[in-house]
């Protein structure tokens, strides 16, 4: 009886259905690409893409669990990647350029949190608007062209391989993901994020300061966005104007697929990881089977919509039960 209901719990859990979906995707894409999908070279591609999305997901997850959101992660990352390229081009040593670029991400996060906490904008509106501000700065810095990166340390971060098959960036992103998971579930800081996301008023009356927390989380999200942008720039060997701007939705899609609800207070890194698998497999599979890029954009949009629908559905079912 006990065991049976446990099994039922597993089968009904969102992770289980997501893993089934992932398995189905793998099978379908392998067949449709005549095995290309599972070739080591392609797996490396998947891992590479996953690294970037994973970093964006982690940043935005902190905010989403606390009941907030950041849509400017992509623009933030792009700007930071561009800044790094710019600084290096002008002869700044990497030990300075790298931390400064990461710090810029944090400052951008703080800027967002001022909009949200002091002017009381909805996070959605605030970060949608600030996205164009940051994108504007990208244009200013770039002055119409991409800036090459030649620094070997940075390039290693973006393109380096461990035993020929494992991208350094993927290892870094996944290790960070474990760290984030531990922070969320084992520390006071992590617990406060869930409590504020679940009921900010109650958290405040229990001695947690939701505003202070929100500042920290926006800053953390900013640093993660920056790291994502830097990683991509390093991989492309240049700060580009497009950067990770369009990847911002990938971070959110993976988080939502994995059970981190827009309502706040739920989900975690385990789910987000499964969400990432599905997302990365899906995106890569479309390329491997040779789907026209325009249609790929349509399909990515549909996946985001699917994730959103899943969130609405889960929230509604929970509200009823």
């Amino acid at each position: 009886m006990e065991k049976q209901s446990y099994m039922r719990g597993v089968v009904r859990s969102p992770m289980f259905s997501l893993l089934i979906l992932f398995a189905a995707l793998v099978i379908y894409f392998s067949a449709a690409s005549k095995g290309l999908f599972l070739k080591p070279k392609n797996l490396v591609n998947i891992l590479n893409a996953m690294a970037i999305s994973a970093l964006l997901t982690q940043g935005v997850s902190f905010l989403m669990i606390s009941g907030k959101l950041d849509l400017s992660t992509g623009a933030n990352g792009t700007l930071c990647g561009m800044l790094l390229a710019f600084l290096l081009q002008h002869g700044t040593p990497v030990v300075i350029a790298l931390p400064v670029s990461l710090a810029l991400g944090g400052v951008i996060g703080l800027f967002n949190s001022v909009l949200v906490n002091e002017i009381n904008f909805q996070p959605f509106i605030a970060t949608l608007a600030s996205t164009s501000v940051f994108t504007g700065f990208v244009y200013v810095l770039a002055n119409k062209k991409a800036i090459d990166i030649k620094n070997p340390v940075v390039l290693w971060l973006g393109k380096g391989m461990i035993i020929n098959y494992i991208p350094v960036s993927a290892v870094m992103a996944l290790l960070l993901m474990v760290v984030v998971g531990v922070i969320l579930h084992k520390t006071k800081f992590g617990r406060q994020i869930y409590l504020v996301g679940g009921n900010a008023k109650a958290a405040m009356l229990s001695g947690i300061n939701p505003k202070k927390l929100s500042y920290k989380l926006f800053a953390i999200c900013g640093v993660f966005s920056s790291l994502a942008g830097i990683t991509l720039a390093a991989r492309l060997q240049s700060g580009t104007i497009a950067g990770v701007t369009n990847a911002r939705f990938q971070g959110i899609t993976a988080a939502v697929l994995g059970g981190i609800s827009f309502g706040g207070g739920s989900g975690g890194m385990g789910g987000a990881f499964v969400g990432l698998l599905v997302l990365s497999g899906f995106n890569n599979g479309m390329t491997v089977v040779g789907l026209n890029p325009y249609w790929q954009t349509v399909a990515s949009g549909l996946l985001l919509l699917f994730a959103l629908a899943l969130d609405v559905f889960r929230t509604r079912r929970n509200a009823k039960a």
Partner: protein
Amino acid sequence: MEQYLEFTGIGKAYPGVQALRDISFRCDGGEVLALLGENGAGKSTLLKILSGDTRPDEGGIIIDGRPQQFSAPYDAIKAGVSVIYQERQLVPAMSVMENIFLGEQPKTSLGTIDKKALRQSTQDIIDKFGLPIRPDELAGRLSVAYQQMVEIMKAYRRNSKIIAFDEPTAPLADAEIAILFDLIRRLKEEGRIVLYVSHRLSEIFRITDKIAVLKDGRFVKYLTTSRTNEQELIQAMVGRDIGDTYANLRRNDKLGDVLLEVCNLETEYLRDVSFTLRRGEVLGLAGLVGAGRTEVARAIFGADAILGGEIRFEGEAIDFSEPKDAIEAGIALCPEDRKDQGLVLWRSIRENITMPVLGRIRKGLFLDRAAEEHLAEEAIAKYAIRTPSINKIVRELSGGNQQKVILGRWTNSKMTTKLLILDEPTKGIDVGTKAEVYQMICDFAGEGFGVIFISSELTEVINVSDRIIVMRNGRVTGDVTRREATEESVLALAMTD
């Protein structure tokens, strides 16, 4: 035709708990039937089944001889059932009349809503009940009591023959309860079937005809109100005699020096509030709903801004900018609205209990899980919280057990509280546990700490407190000792200007 409602062999299980098993009883038209039982006995679950919100695993409902199959609330409404939950179900942004006629508003020949007819029909119902409510008023702007009246009028408009109330008086003041009871009597005279859930025994005797007692999800006793007494009810409900709660309290009579001094306090809601609290003292705050008692608590706790006057705690002036500082200084506030300000509903009992003491249960970088579990176990034992596990999501607990979780949080053993402020702590709690809470309050005072006890239940606040401050409209209108206080005198102070 004879009107009656019958439950036949109702059973319902949730993961880890059998909420109801084999519940069978009957209720006739023109009668008010009380559903009585401890927290978690299954009363709300039974009402949810009656309203079509939840489906039973076994058994069924028979209305006027016809077996019913409710698969959604809509079916129950069609069959003439209205359940009025403790949480209001009105649409706050809609007017009273739109709420009352929700989904069935009168139409003009053009198919638009006939506002005139709508207003008139609403006014007719309002007049019938003799209430000072306007049809055009927004539901969200009414007081909780009047919102509840609107729900009753909605049930009346639907012509529901079965109307059930789940702890309707918890948020109401005495005067409002009188209005509610008039309404219930009227429904009864019209031959309707009324089900009534409450933990206040005095109400059961005032308003009901029959009593069905549930215990641990089983039906244990069916009684006629006029032929029973409190002792028998408590015996049936709790399974033992708890005696006279107030007489049995072991009180503290050693008063120390002044712990808290409130001088001419002004906030957005308060005018010139002054009183003192000594160590070892239980100070009651009485008054009608909205008198400003909660605001006093919030000002002390650093949750509302102080605009004038002074608060001195242990001899030093305090003006906390956030509750965190108050907690660190040794002040705890157990808030009144458990859903809005108290609980994080989607998190576990364990996580809810340890909220204010996260900084004190750490092991290195991490939270000390064992210490956390220990605190949760303690609270469960102290307040007899009915749950299969400390990791159960608080939302899945019964109302009274949720209240106990907040109490458990604010009295957990890692707190270093010197001043405990309890705002309506016994709301929705069963009689047995109420006695435990009163004793906890007295013991806490006995250790040389201070307690501010806010309650809208006069009997309770008068009998537990050593001294009672009475408030009205943000001002203090009286300061009496337990010996001096009677329900009449305190009520008079709460109503005079």
